[in-house]
């Protein structure tokens, strides 16, 4: 196992990285320099491949961050900064190494694709399922799936040990889920991360900093009931429906996944962010999480082709065009837009920022 022959492979301290970027000039909006808590360094500009890297780090046009999560193993994150569209190549890796930074490159789009390619299952089964929910509601749904999956697993183990036959359907003989258990499970997530839980990813993408209140959980359960994903009784005990059974089944093989984030500057100065979490599961199915322009969390069952098309589209499309203004079809890129002045989220059709009033076009 050897590293690719990067022309540049350099480990440097925070101050050295700041000096490298400062030497190239004032930083752009996506420059990692804005995140470095270091005084301005005045020095001669770097030359050669390090100079190329400095120019890219000073004002990158787009940034791709890839987080790979594994169940029992580890997680890893790497960021690649590109001077233009990723298809043009010339990107540089920037990895945080215990407070220091590893700068390597140049990196091409295809190398990024090679990173995630092994994570995608080779076969695909197109099982249409799409749900777009508020982040809290999605967290509750993910918790229901996780608990149901644990219950099913324990039921299967007990049947093997007792010598009983397996049930005909996945969710048969499951006891209704008490609200208190659901709330405890949601609370526990913020204490103990488990990477084989769908809740982990749903919350990561929803960006909620703390567990939902009891009332919010109740509201979410009602919404999920209206969506016929669960059935609830008058005591809010939850029973998954057959519609949800497919998600529970898919989540059985869940132990790894990756999060994709592409950030790019648009022609009008605003920032485009595309985020997606892809979770390969058993049977070639993929749990596909993304954020809609309206801020909803979208959960879908996808096939390899769909995710591949998304990734390649991300690596070859130019972000010069405005993001879609209407709800995108299933599998399409989900874009979020932010004000270039203050960073506040803005709708696709907005002309002015609602927070600072800055012009977006």
């Amino acid at each position, binding site marked *: *196992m*050897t*590293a*690719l*022959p990067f*022309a540049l*492979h350099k*480990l440097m301290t925070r101050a050295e990285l700041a000096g490298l970027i400062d030497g190239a000039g004032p930083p752009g909006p996506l420059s990692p320099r804005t995140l470095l808590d270091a005084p301005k360094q005045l020095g001669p500009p770097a030359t050669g491949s390090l100079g190329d890297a400095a120019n890219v780090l000073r004002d990158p046009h787009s940034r791709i961050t890839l987080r*790979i999560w*594994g*169940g*029992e*193993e*580890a*997680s*890893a*994150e*790497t960021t690649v900064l590109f001077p233009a*569209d990723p*298809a*043009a*190549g010339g990107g540089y*890796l920037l*990895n945080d*190494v*215990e407070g220091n930074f*590893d700068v*390597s490159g140049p*990196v*091409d*789009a*295809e*190398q990024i*694709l*090679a*990173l*995630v*390619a*092994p*994570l*995608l*299952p*080779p*076969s695909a089964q197109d099982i249409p399922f799409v749900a777009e929910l508020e982040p809290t509601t999605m967290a509750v749904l993910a918790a229901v799936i996780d608990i149901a999956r644990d219950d099913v697993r324990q039921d299967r183990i007990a049947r093997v040990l007792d010598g009983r036959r397996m049930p005909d359907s996945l969710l048969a003989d499951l006891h209704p889920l008490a609200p208190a258990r659901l709330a405890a499970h949601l609370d526990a997530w913020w204490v*103990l991360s*488990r*990477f084989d839980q769908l809740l982990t990813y749903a919350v990561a993408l929803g960006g909620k900093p703390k567990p939902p209140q009891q009332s919010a959980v109740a509201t979410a359960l009602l919404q999920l009931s209206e969506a016929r994903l669960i059935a609830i009784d008058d005591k809010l005990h939850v029973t998954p429906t057959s519609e949800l059974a497919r998600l529970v089944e898919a989540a059985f*093989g869940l*132990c*790894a996944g*990756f999060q994709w984030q592409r950030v790019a500057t648009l022609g009008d100065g605003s920032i485009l962010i595309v985020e997606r979490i892809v979770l*390969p599961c*058993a049977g070639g199915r993929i749990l596909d999480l993304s954020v809609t322009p309206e801020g909803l969390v979208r959960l879908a069952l996808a096939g390899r082709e769909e995710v*591949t098309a998304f990734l*390649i*589209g991300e*690596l*070859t*499309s*130019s972000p010069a065009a405005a993001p879609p203004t209407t709800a995108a079809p299933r599998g399409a890129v989900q874009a979020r837009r932010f004000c270039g002045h203050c960073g506040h989220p803005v709708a696709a059709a907005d002309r002015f920022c609602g927070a600072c009033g800055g012009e977006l076009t």
Partner: protein
Amino acid sequence: MGRRKTLLLMLVAFGALVLTPSAVRAQQDPEHDALVLALRMQQPSDPGWQAMMKIAILIVPDREMTAILETRNNGVPAKVFHQVFNLLTWKYNPAQGFVYAGRNHTGIRLLSFNRPDEASRYAASTEASDFSGPFFTRPACRRIVGGRHVIEIAGPSGCGISFSSDQLRAVVGPLLDVLAAQANKALSSLPPPAADQPPVTQTQPPVSTPPLTPEDLATVPPLGSEPPTMTENEPEPQGPADEQPVSELTPAEIAAAAGLAGGAALLGSLLMLGTSGVRRDEAIAAIRDLLRGHVPEDPYEAWKRKYEALGWKYSEKDGVGTFDPIDGARNEGGEIYSAERGGFVPAGEGSRVLTSARDGDVNERGEIWSENEGAWVQRTYWDQERSRAADLEARRAGEIAEAERISRVESEAASQETARFAERIAAERAANEAALAAEKARLNQLYAEHLHRVMDAEMAESTRQEHWADVMAVGEYVSKATLAAAKTGMMVVAGPAGWIPAMAGSGIISSAEEGARAWVAGDSGGKLAGAFAAGFLSGAKDGAVGRYVNMPRISNVVKVLLPAELDTAETLLRTGDPRKALAAGGLSAFGGWVGQKAGNIGNTVTREGAQVLLGGFMGAVGRVTTDGNFTEGFIDGVVGGIGSTVGGRIANAHTPMTAAQIQLDQEALENAAKGQGLVDDLKHAIAHGTPEEQKAALHRVLENRDAKLQLKGDNVDEATKTAFAALTDEHRTKPLFEGTAAHLNGQTVTDDKGVTTTRFVVREPDPAKPGSFLEREVRPTDIKSGSGSAGAAPGMDLDMYAGATIIDKKTGRPAHPRELEEAVKVTCDKLGISKSQQEINVIHPTHVEAYAKRPGETPKDFLARMNAGQVRGSEGRSLSEVTAVKLAEAGVLHNPAGAASERCRTVIKDYDRITSGLLEAKPGARLPPVFTARNAVTGETPMDILRAVANGRMPPGTADAKFRAATGMSLTAGAEKLAQMPEFIAKIGATGRAPAGPGLVYPTGMSPGEIATAALRQALRIGSDKASRSGPKLSL
């Protein structure tokens, strides 16, 4: 030089047409000291093609103003506006501007001098003027008119247009003749100088000429018609417009003329900027007004209005307008003209009858006072006069209305034309942007398709590996294998350091997970803490080991023992059993040692299989030592091994490609397809075509690199190859040699005594008289081919050289190689052969490709000597230069994909022919490792990649990506480096070895001077390489 005023510059478009003047009109404007020329052009080759139109613009003193010619093909305007618009920022002469825009234009101007001798000197001078270039400095482009004026054809210099002498005579000469004749006519019709005017006319206004209008241009007399006579009795020019011949100008043409006039004024202002005092903003403002239809005050009109107001009578003859005083007319001094007295008299002294009667008053004689006549007239006369006045008034009103209408139409048409022009520019800009966007989209699409193929290939590999996992009944661990693969891939791409951020995170995660399980299981607090600690240690250990053992200069012993020690510690902590811990450590060390050995296995499949099985064995034994199940452990180990294999294989074996490299591959495919098409055409022509069709197909093949390559390959049958060789001999080599000999024989030289003889002869020993020589003409057999004999398959190029001693009688010495080169070039032109595309070279002893450095040594002998190691450093350098020249030529002759492939072909061919022999002959010499390092996964070396491209087995884009990944160099840089090998090898001594890096390594014993020279040469080479790659061309 007494050049006084430049009067006129009129652009004439030749474009793709040969135009001759069909009508010319010349008029003088003394008030503005300008001559106005107008001419209409026709295309002689197409009599039906007509309605050519020209617009001439009046020129103000000391300023050049121009008129743009608009060519019209049967009424369809050519695109002149485009160029005019661009001239807003054009800083050079306007002709260059037009040529730059893709049209060939030239100009005509009239220069006036103070004295005839100055005009004569200018007309005969050969110096370049500010406008004319080297092609138009010759006197053939000038004519003297009117004694002190010169008409000059001025053309764009250095912009791709040139007239040969024949063309000058055919086109420029007649045009000048016509212009000169008409200008002389106009000049001779002018009134004599002021000094010759009668005294009484001292206040006579100058004779003037009305400016040309579009209507004037439409009524230009046809070429060859009789010029108007100059007698005073000549009747007045034809009267009202409706009595004139029908104008050829349509309203659209008139509108276009207005627009063109604006462009012309603009052009003129730019021309004179900085020299005439006209400010740019003034000129542009004037142009803007013109384009908007706001015609500025015309000096001629002002002059005319002034004398009309004074009561003078206007008449026009031969294009020259004059005012004559009539009774009652005043001069500028207020005097009144008296016909009776024949001159002006003070007011009050005139013959006019002073009376208080008003017009229409009747006197006692029944006469009626006519205000117009200033006298009592008969009623009949008075009525007629009134009626005539009313008619005139009505006609004048009608004319004014018509003029206003025409003006409105012109203005509107000009505005519309301007708007259309702006729209056209906007549309072209949009089209350009759309084309760029489309090109980018096409490239992105190409790249996306490539990425899809990459994903499919990787998926196929994953499927194969997972199938293996299924076979081994570990299918349920697919996700785990996938994770391991991803981790491995990430480490390969990002390097070990890239994995380090996971270290702390993975420790925490594992810790939390194990702690959570202990908590759920209801373990005690102590066990809970232990679980957290063990989990953290396990995760952190993996990260730390992964980083450390991959650092440089870490010995293999450490790489094996460190993980083993940590595994021992972890097992001890987990189990509390020292025996198991030591077993785990020993197993780890064993696995690491075996793993290193397995990593060195050359065969890819064997190596991967060994690694996977080792993983299974390690997992199984490890699980046993920790009270686990052997089978379960084996499966886990196999799964981990598979995952690592998948990830490592994908990341290592597959080489990422950029969009430019994808494009290069696409171009190579297109090249190959085109070459195949030409080969098929040749085959068809050989089987069914006429000799002419065969000849045409042959030359198309000979001018296409890919087609020639395919004909040299194994996919073409021998019959076709034989026919190809025969056709090449018949239609190229033979006529080329014959033509070259004939050209040389056709050259003559005249000696001092005036005797003319053949210039080139072959001198050979006289067999009858030993010691003396015979001279004879050059024969085709004296020209030799260095690229194979007749009947053999032609090579990629044709190297020609003189096989006999050709003497140049002009110098008395052997002919200079450039003479043979010129003969070959001329012959190629005559035969319609592209010398460069067919790569026809003339080789001579000083040519870089002439390997024979010792007198009398043939290339074959030279190669034999070289292969025996008997080659000097200078010869090695020469060999490297030969290859370098070919590499440079490849970049000129072919598109990027063809150039990249040709460079590889050239450098591999020369390596096989020259470098490999040198390497064998020189003890200790070897290629730098950068060419020989073998990829552990694919088994390829960089030399393999170069060879694969040379043989057409790998497209250049893919090869470039692989070569960069393996060496850090581009394919082109690699080829250049390989080309330098003969020089290196020839210069290093027997104990030396080839340099490993990009720099030179000089052997001990080399003199400082030699080292300095070689270093300088290397520096220059690098500098030139950088310079050549700095352009916008796609470079590898």
